[in-house]
């Protein structure tokens, strides 16, 4: 069953709190991504991971960091969350390059 699972689906945090968004995939895909989606802006790439401990910044990495210690698991961490990080965050994975990305259902994060 090809699936990308994101936890949690909804999250409310206060400004300054730390946030951990988790993503798992069951397809043994090498490449994984974190995007954020904001109205009118489409999806913006935060980080891309080519394999375990092989991560690269995307277009908007400031304020975020990632961790990939196992191929099937990719975490997004917000240290001291800010209100402008309120967004919907999507994790995705792909077997080879960007031929076809599989997306999770997203995590809606509200930072108050």
């Amino acid at each position: 069953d090809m699936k990308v699972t994101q936890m949690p689906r909804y999250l409310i945090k206060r400004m300054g709190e730390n946030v951990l968004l988790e993503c798992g995939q069951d397809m043994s895909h090498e490449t994984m991504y974190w995007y954020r989606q904001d109205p009118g802006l489409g999806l913006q790439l935060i980080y891309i991971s080519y394999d375990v401990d092989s991560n690269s910044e995307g277009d908007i990495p400031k304020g975020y960091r990632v961790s990939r210690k196992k191929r099937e698991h990719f975490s997004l961490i917000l240290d001291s969350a800010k209100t402008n990080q309120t967004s919907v965050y999507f994790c995705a994975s792909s077997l080879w390059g960007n031929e076809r990305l599989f997306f999770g259902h997203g995590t809606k994060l509200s930072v108050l």
Partner: protein
Amino acid sequence: AQSVTQPDARVTVSEGASLQLRCKYSYSATPYLFWYVQYPRQGLQLLLKYYSGDPVVQGVNSFEAEFSKSNSSFHLQKASVHWSDSAVYFCALSPASSGSWQLIFGSGTQLTVMP
């Protein structure tokens, strides 16, 4: 710099009508191009992709898209829409020659199909 423009934020059509969603790209060479669809409360799903060759590519659910290098466009089309096609559609570009696997997304087009 590479970019993708979807000029129509919202499109409304009647069920059974034909559909065209527009996508324009900016890239110095021939890119890889994609259309993704996002149904409510779900992640994005790949509809179709273009790498090279025949400029008309077929996708799932009878969608097709036509690549035009002269117009820098990759418009999505469907001959007859169904109410279940209501969703947000994203055009995306991959700069093939850069070695990066990053996808650059447009801002999306919200499609509403009226019964």
